[in-house]
């Protein structure tokens, strides 16, 4: 009789499995693929201007001693529109922001900026997502915090919400 507890082992294992299933079913879906390319130098690239009148973006622009944001966006990206006011607020607060436009046309970028305002110092056109892939980025919008030596310090996936703005400013100040 001493080993009767074994009879309950299958029940215990099945209960445990169901517990895990229930937990995972109720856990919020998290399909974000985070970049592993953090604390690494910006990949080498030289992107042409994404639209007339605004300079393109190359790697050496990102190592001028100033910490900055590099925003991955696209005119066809709806959430990017919702993010625009926060980028504008950061730019007005003196944060340097450069943009990388993913799979975009010059006239579409111009229309997007006319509608949302332009927080960018430079915008590079990434026609084949090659810089996006080299950054380990998997969608738009995404924002990379880059220090003054051109090292990527943080990746922000999805839109920057108003609540995140002060934290981003603190982070950039700490990199100065």
């Amino acid at each position, binding site marked *: 009789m001493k080993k009767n507890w074994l009879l309950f082992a299958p029940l215990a294992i099945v209960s445990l499995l169901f517990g895990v299933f229930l937990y995972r079913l109720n856990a919020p879906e998290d399909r974000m*693929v985070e970049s592993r390319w953090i604390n690494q130098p910006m990949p080498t690239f030289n992107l042409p201007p994404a639209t007339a009148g605004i300079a393109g973006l190359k790697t050496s622009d990102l190592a001028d001693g100033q910490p900055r944001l590099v925003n991955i966006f696209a005119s066809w990206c709806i959430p990017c529109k919702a993010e625009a006011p926060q980028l504008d607020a950061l730019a007005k607060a003196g944060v340097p922001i450069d943009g990388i436009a993913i799979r975009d*046309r010059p006239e579409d970028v111009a229309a997007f900026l006319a509608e949302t305002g332009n927080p960018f110092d430079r915008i590079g056109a990434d026609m084949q*997502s*090659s810089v*996006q892939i080299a950054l380990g980025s998997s969608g738009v919008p995404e924002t990379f915090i880059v220090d003054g030596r051109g090292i990527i310090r943080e990746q922000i996936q999805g839109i920057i919400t108003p609540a995140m703005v002060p934290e981003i400013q603190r982070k950039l100040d700490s990199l100065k």
Partner: protein
Amino acid sequence: MTGRCAWARRAAWALALAVAAPAAMAQDSLPPAPLAYKQLADPAQEAAATALMHELRCLVCQGQSIADSDAPLAGDMRHEVRSRIAAGESPDAVRDWLVARYGNWVTYDPPFDAATALLWIGPLLFLLAGLWLARGRFAVGVPDERGEGA
């Protein structure tokens, strides 16, 4: 009545368009990257690239390989893979380059490490557990030690 029906239909159409428009706009309008759908001229290189593309996971349409997906980013990743293979990089080097950026998540053939150990050892553990549970039943001619069952 007909007048009101026509009005309602128009309103429904306008609503449907308003709902559908943002979804339609959320696609870029650029043509696919040059090597997204075009095979490499060298059959050996194309075979190596294709094998690798079937093993790399699409980032936006998770659950599909980049070879199977029509998502623009998957096309751009195929272009990236084919360009690198055409430039003489080995499939392993291309895979390592992507894993350095997206983690083992990006490959359908992840290496044996802490995260995958249970998957590999699991069946063996179950087999051992089963043998342990059944050990008494293999004894031939020897009375069950508990003196019951079997």
